[in-house]
């Protein structure tokens, strides 16, 4: 009879192990609370750290959104074989303006002719070595300015796209375009060089001997900063006076598009197709490098920092649970000795302690996750941030607590499993 029974070892069902663990926890709620406290705090900190990582990442994204590129520049890849033809069909600006995210778009090109274009405040442009240039220093400076001042032809849409601001005067518009008005705008640097400080009186600049009334002084432009050193005249006037841009002379016409923050990337992809459905690949599209990479690096650094803090806290929490569980197991060695004496195998004792530890970890994890979410909300509100809590970090947190508890319980459980009943049963049970 005995031989037959030996072949059938004692068993402990998983449900019974869990039930025993629950009963043991409920029998000593104070001890359970102390053990869970470590898990609670470490899971709370873990969730808080991850939540703060997400929240801080959101803040970084928000801060960088204001610095995203808002301009797209389009130009032909190579000079047009037909010198008198504009590479952009009529209505380009209107079609680009209809794209989602586009604020304004306009064509511009540097006015370059086969000869040097000279800008002067007088009818006869001064040249180096002329008798008038030698009269004085001011005249000499103005002569240098006349030689060096670039001239741009631009549509009114370009002025809007470049977000041009004036210190005085007005911008040219559709009327000036339509009537090919001989007007121009002077960049603040160019105006100073040409001796124009204000527009209280009518001022005229002679561009390649064509008189143009200065109607405004440009003080600021968000894009195309060289505009401040240039004289800008309506593109229709430029075409009327000197013909279409001579690409072989380096007067490559480009389109400047101003977009809403974040839309530049999409607009840059769509714009060539809007300009030419047949040959979108003939255009070179450029947009300023955005701070996306920097933003991603900053966000990644912040996230990894918080993650590291979270993992360190989890490790410390696991160690604290392990130490409390260890003390608890030592205190209960007589109980485990008794269980061994009445038929529990080492594996059963191990399962019992690990189950108990995992359940305490689960309870601590649930409470810790709730506390962590509350902490994230409170801290974010205190800083005026938008709290971001990723469900993937909060929902598995109780399971993480259970896993930490289970891990923390393994070594004490191994100790408990090695308890010799004959040594411990002389003590009285205090549980």
């Amino acid at each position, binding site marked *: 009879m005995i031989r037959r029974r030996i072949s059938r070892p004692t068993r402990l069902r998983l449900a019974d192990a869990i039930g025993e663990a629950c009963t043991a926890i409920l029998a000593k709620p104070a001890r359970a609370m102390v053990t869970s406290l470590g898990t609670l705090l470490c899971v709370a900190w873990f969730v808080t750290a991850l939540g703060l990582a997400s929240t801080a990442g959101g803040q970084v994204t928000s801060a960088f959104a204001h610095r995203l590129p808002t301009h797209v520049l389009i130009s032909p890849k190579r000079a047009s074989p037909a010198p008198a033809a504009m590479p952009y069909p009529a209505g380009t600006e209107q079609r680009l303006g209809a794209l989602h995210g586009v604020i304004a778009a306009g064509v511009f090109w540097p006015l370059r002719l086969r000869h040097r274009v000279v800008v002067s405040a007088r009818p006869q442009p001064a040249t180096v070595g002329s008798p008038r240039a030698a009269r004085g220093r001011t005249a000499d400076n103005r002569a240098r300015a006349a030689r060096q001042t670039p001239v741009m032809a631009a549509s009114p849409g370009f002025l809007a796209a470049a977000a041009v601001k004036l210190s005085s005067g007005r911008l040219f518009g559709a009327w000036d375009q339509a009537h090919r008005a001989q007007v121009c705008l002077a960049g603040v640097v160019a105006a100073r060089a040409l001796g124009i400080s204000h527009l209280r009186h009518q001022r005229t600049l002679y561009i390649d001997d064509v008189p143009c009334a200065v109607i405004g002084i440009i003080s600021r432009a968000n894009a195309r900063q060289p505009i401040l050193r240039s004289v800008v005249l309506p593109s229709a006037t430029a075409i009327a006076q000197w013909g279409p841009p001579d690409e072989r002379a380096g007067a490559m016409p480009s389109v400047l598009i101003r977009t809403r923050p974040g839309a530049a990337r999409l607009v840059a992809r769509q714009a060539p197709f809007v300009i030419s459905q047949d040959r979108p690949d003939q255009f070179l599209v450029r947009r300023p490098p955005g701070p996306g990479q920097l933003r991603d690096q900053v966000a990644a650094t912040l996230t990894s920092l918080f993650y590291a803090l979270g993992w360190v806290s989890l490790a410390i929490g696991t160690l604290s649970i392990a130490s409390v569980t260890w003390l608890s197991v030592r205190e209960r060695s007589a109980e485990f000795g008794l269980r061994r004496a009445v038929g*529990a195998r080492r594996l059963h004792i191990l399962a019992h302690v690990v189950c108990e530890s995992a359940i305490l970890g689960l309870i601590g994890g649930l409470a810790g996750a709730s506390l962590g979410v509350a902490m994230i909300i409170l801290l974010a509100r205190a800083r005026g941030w938008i709290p971001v809590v990723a469900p993937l970090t909060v929902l598995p947190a109780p399971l993480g607590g259970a896993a930490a508890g289970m891990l923390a319980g393994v070594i004490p459980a191994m100790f408990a499993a090695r308890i010799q009943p004959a040594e411990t049963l002389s003590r009285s049970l205090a549980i």
Partner: protein
Amino acid sequence: MAIESLTQPISRPSAQPLIELRGAGVTYPGRRSPALSAFDLAVRHGELVTLTGPPGSGKSTLLSVVGLLLRPTTGSYLLNGLEVTRLGDKDRTALRGRLIGRVFQQPQLLASRSVLDNVVLPLLYAELRRQQRSTAAAAALERVGMAHRMHALARELPAGEQQRVAIARAIAGNPSLLLCDDPTATLDEPAAAQVIGLLVGLHKEGTTVLVATRDQLAAAHSSRRLVVAPIGSGTLAGDLSP
């Protein structure tokens, strides 16, 4: 070593002893003198044997060997003819859980658990369903007259009742062998008498009972056969049969 014994007819005579120790000795690690030295003992099925001797004579060590909580460092131990000294832990645990019930000097109850929970404890490892466990535990409590307190917390019971609950826990799995290590040591006289009466009653129902006690009177009242344990390596055997 000779063991004097008074043997009265037992209810279920068997050809081979249930317990057979042959020169069993135990020396604890780090100790020079043995706690138990070359002890011979044979207990047949259904016997009630009382083991008595002065403190330190090795009674508890002997019970631990018989109860498979200790391995003898010398000699051999046959349980129902099976050499169990060198069995693995899993087999020894199985024998301990299924064949042997133990009552300790102190009740060793889980104080913050109910009486029923305490009695159910060994049945957790016996592959019984919850209902079967509860029924068996209730029956054991009925046998020791403690069924009416099954839902009380163990710590609420007086010492005598706690020891009766401990006996119920020991017999809940219907063991073939009941080992009692000085079960009356902490009890007053009426409670001790109740416990002795219970053990005698279990013996009459067919359980093999081995009791270690310092109380000569209790031994004299309970035992059909009495073995006086040796002190250390010396041999002291006597006959105190009723």
